[in-house]
């Protein structure tokens, strides 16, 4: 009797749809939903599940409770990745996303586009203002996600944070907590500016107050990629070098062999950071100093922890406003640059250089995770035409790497340059005078 109920062995299946076939293109379907009955159509057209779900169900009501005592007054312990309950002093750490979602592994197996849930497209109608009903007293508390992710209920002092992954781009998959403390950042900025005082704008020096530095979480997409690239061009090897003529008319001539070159490289990149705010991503040094913030990359993104708004208490944040598709050209540009850097060592014998003329990129797979990265930012607005210039001094909130733009006093710099040039010219004339 029991034997009769044993299921037969599963037959090996080789027909259409088996793993032996070439998989269809992502998003394509052999079925035309329009021709199908409504229940099936609805099923087919329902949104696909996102590949990596990083939303945390336990924090959906906007209240981060201490796991031990349930209080909501939770803060990051400065200089560490730990959260501390200000009521009972319990300390704990959110899980690292690297292990939690397996982000460090299988990059060479990546295919298609894998998007973590916090990196999904921003809904056009999503508002940045969010209203919470305080679970402590029932009052309504508003959080403006453009620049903040937590708020304190003004009636009962409950702390509410935005943890639910709303489709306005404000909630990332992960956050990398500040390690560099404010005093440390202030010292680094002071040290940076002290090395640049002589020709600095007078108003900048007069108003210099590094204590006004602000800790801000900036939005980035952290991308893993599995790609192949080809480049083609010409290279030259010197075969002979000789001089002709004599005295002042002596000239050097070169003979060279010309080669046609092709190079192919397969590579993976791990955790390439891209600015996912349109304003920050604009690196035009004629109109802004965003390149300063770009320079302090990279961060130790491997240590990022699962999103928890408590890390953002007392810091400001900037909302992401770029989607994966908008960032793809930027990513491909960087991947091509990396490919060109990778093949350089293989053309070392071309001592007269190489002129690359064509390049090709095949992106096999990418994985996108949105992250808030910690930056200490000091800014100074220099008045001028077209709204002037906003100068940043930025400190990487993890590594302490510091970079900045110090406005210059043009007349001072010009005067110094002309004075030195004048001295050089004077000596040149002296030498010429002696020679003739």
């Amino acid at each position, binding site marked *: 009797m029991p034997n009769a109920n044993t299921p037969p062995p599963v037959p090996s299946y080789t027909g259409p749809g088996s793993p032996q076939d070439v998989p269809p293109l992502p998003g394509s379907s052999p079925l035309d939903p329009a021709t199908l009955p409504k229940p099936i159509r609805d099923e087919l057209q329902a949104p696909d599940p996102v590949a990596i779900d990083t939303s945390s169900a336990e924090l959906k009501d906007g209240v981060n409770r201490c796991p031990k005592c349930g209080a909501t007054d939770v803060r990051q312990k400065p200089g560490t990745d730990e959260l501390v309950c200000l009521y009972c002093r319990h300390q704990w750490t959110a899980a690292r996303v690297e292990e939690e979602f397996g982000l460090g592994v299988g990059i060479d197996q990546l295919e298609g586009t894998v998007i973590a849930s916090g990196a999904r497209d921003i809904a056009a109608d999503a508002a940045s203002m969010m209203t919470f009903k305080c679970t402590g007293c029932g009052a309504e508390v508003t959080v403006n996600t453009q620049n903040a992710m937590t708020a304190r209920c003004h009636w009962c002092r409950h702390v509410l944070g935005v943890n639910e992954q709303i489709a306005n781009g404000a909630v990332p998959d992960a956050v990398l907590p500040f390690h560099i403390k404010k005093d440390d950042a202030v010292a680094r900025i002071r040290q940076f500016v002290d090395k640049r005082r002589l020709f600095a704008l007078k108003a900048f020096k007069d108003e210099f107050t590094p204590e006004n530095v602000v800790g801000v979480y900036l939005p980035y997409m952290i991308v893993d990629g599995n790609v192949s690239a080809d480049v083609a061009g010409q290279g030259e090897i010197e075969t002979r070098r000789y001089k002709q003529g004599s005295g002042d008319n002596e*000239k050097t001539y070169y*003979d060279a062999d010309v080669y046609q070159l092709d190079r*192919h490289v397969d590579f*993976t*990149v791990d*955790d390439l950071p891209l600015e996912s705010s349109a304003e920050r991503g604009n690196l035009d040094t004629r109109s802004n100093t965003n390149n300063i913030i770009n320079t302090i990359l990279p961060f130790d993104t491997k240590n990022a922890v699962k999103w928890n708004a408590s890390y953002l208490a007392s810091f400001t944040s900037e909302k992401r406003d770029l989607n994966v598709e908008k960032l793809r050209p930027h990513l491909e540009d960087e991947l091509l640059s990396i490919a060109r850097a990778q093949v350089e060592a293989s053309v070392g014998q*071309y001592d007269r250089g190489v002129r690359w003329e064509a390049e090709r990129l095949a992106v096999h797979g990418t994985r996108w995770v949105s992250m808030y990265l910690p930056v200490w930012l000091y800014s100074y607005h220099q008045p001028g035409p077209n709204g002037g210039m906003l100068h940043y001094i930025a400190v990487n909130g993890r590594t302490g790497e510091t970079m900045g733009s110090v406005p210059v006093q043009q007349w001072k710099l010009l005067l110094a*340059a002309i004075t030195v040039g004048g001295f050089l*010219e004077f000596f040149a004339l002296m030498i010429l005078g002696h020679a003739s």
Partner: protein
Amino acid sequence: MSDHGMWLLLAGPAGATGLYWGLYRYYRNTDKSHAFERETAVVAKPVTGSDQKIDEVKGTRESRIEGDNVREYRRRVQRIEGEPPEGG
């Protein structure tokens, strides 16, 4: 002699311009950005490719190939779309 004299006369303007731009960059850091080519974790398989001699140059006065861009990783050249040819 006259040739050397002309070169020396340029020392003043060249020194002034060099100092101006050198200091300007030191203060404003306009030439800095994230060196992702060096600072990203890249795992590459060995580079493959072919080299074919196609021509010889005789008696040129240029010390480098025209349009040398071997170190200018970020300057894009013609982008070819599609899959690489057989064996590429």
